[in-house]
């Protein structure tokens, strides 16, 4: 698989490592704009090819190689450039185009521009803080990129919430497991859920959204 990573910063570092893990025999080409970084990248990633390019020549490179590029990851330190390269790659029918955000507040702009795969590395901060401090009602643990679904943590604060969560699981037939108040993991049926537990559930986005609406309306 031929993967192109644009940018040579820390975003690119994790991307290249992941691509190498996915396809150890594949080609990874890193495009960088500064010669010093290119030299450093050659040493850090001896298995990858590095291309020294000016910012405005990247589009030409994409056009020339568009029939061979399988994955393009736009991971520069500038969201404006990431958006520009991602849009250009989609226009040139690169099959998988991924943009990595520097500023999470720019995510709506990428979505509006129809960039299908946008990675927001900061997205886990909110859920991690909620999980560690253990203060939440519904916590989004993981959001899938290819399907509109995720893994959510639902905290059973009282009997009312317990009933709602039980009925939600039964209605949607969602897979789940339970974490007790003493952090022990339990599996079991919906009847085993108790007040104080946290229920980790995998379901569709639309289902969890309607559930959140219901608990807001009910004040539960």
């Amino acid at each position, binding site marked *: *698989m031929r993967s192109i990573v644009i940018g040579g910063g820390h975003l690119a570092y994790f991307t290249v490592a992941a691509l190498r893990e996915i396809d150890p*025999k594949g080609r990874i080409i890193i495009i960088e704009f500064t010669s010093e970084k290119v030299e450093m990248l050659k040493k850090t990633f001896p298995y990858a090819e590095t291309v020294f390019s000016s910012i405005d020549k990247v589009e030409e490179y994409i056009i020339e190689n568009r029939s061979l590029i399988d994955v393009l990851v736009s991971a520069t330190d500038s969201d404006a450039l990431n958006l520009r390269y991602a849009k250009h790659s989609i226009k040139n*029918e690169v*099959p998988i185009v991924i943009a990595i955000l520097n500023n999470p507040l720019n995510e709506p702009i990428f979505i509006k521009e129809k960039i299908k795969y946008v990675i927001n590395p900061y997205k886990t901060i909110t859920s991690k803080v909620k999980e560690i401090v253990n203060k939440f009602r519904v916590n989004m643990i993981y959001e899938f990129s290819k399907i509109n679904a995720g893994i959510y943590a639902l905290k059973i604060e009282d009997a009312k919430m317990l009933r709602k969560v039980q009925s939600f699981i039964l209605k949607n037939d969602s897979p789940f497991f339970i974490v007790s108040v003493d952090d022990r993991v339990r599996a079991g049926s919906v009847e085993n859920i108790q007040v104080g537990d946290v229920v980790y559930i995998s379901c569709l986005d639309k289902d969890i959204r309607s559930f959140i609406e219901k608990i807001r309306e009910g004040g539960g």
Partner: protein
Amino acid sequence: MTLEEYSLIIRIIFALLSIILAIFLGSRLREIITKNLSKFGHAFASKFAEIVRYFLIILGAVIAFSILSLDVVVLTGISIGIIIIVLISMRDVFSNYAGEIYLRVRRPFNEGDFIKVGRISGRVLCINSQDVELISTEGERVIIPNQFFLKHPIINKSSTTPMSIELKIIFKESTPEESEETVMEALNEVRPELFEDPRIISINKTDTRTEVNLLLHIVNQRKIKWVINKLSREFHRKGVEIEIE
């Protein structure tokens, strides 16, 4: 004022009212439809709502004419005639719109998915009002009218991305062992461009030739030609005479 004049004024008022009511209902219905169908795409919802609105306005106009007691039979005949002519002359356009409704509501595939419809395979570039644009496995841009999707079964292969390709390589003068070794050497040259390791499915020996069936996995379908050419060059470089199917 005579009774006839009085009756005419009443009829004109009612006719105007029916047109106003149709316009009002059309506008209200447009808002409701746009709001409720926006999940299928804003452009599609607006277009559908606009069609319903015009339909209601035309209906209001026909009712107005009938209230005015113009010859209803003649009016109805003319209206039906116009509608039939419009439907016949624009049947493909309407059929494509029906196809779009099917694609938006049923969602058999999305942009970016790899599909097969009829004999055509490719990745979906965009879904339009009248057609769907694909990039075929040969790298050509194919425009398929939406009505085509109403008449042919659709296979959505997006879940199996990357796509799998079967190649048959025929060696004219070679033993199965030699063929396998040559194929593996040539495949090593193209492996970095493939998604995962290619696989030899079978090797069949006939009287004069050896057939090697291969399975390759490719993400970018426009790469297929390049891979085949590269393999051919590799075999040619090794001095092996082959055919690729």
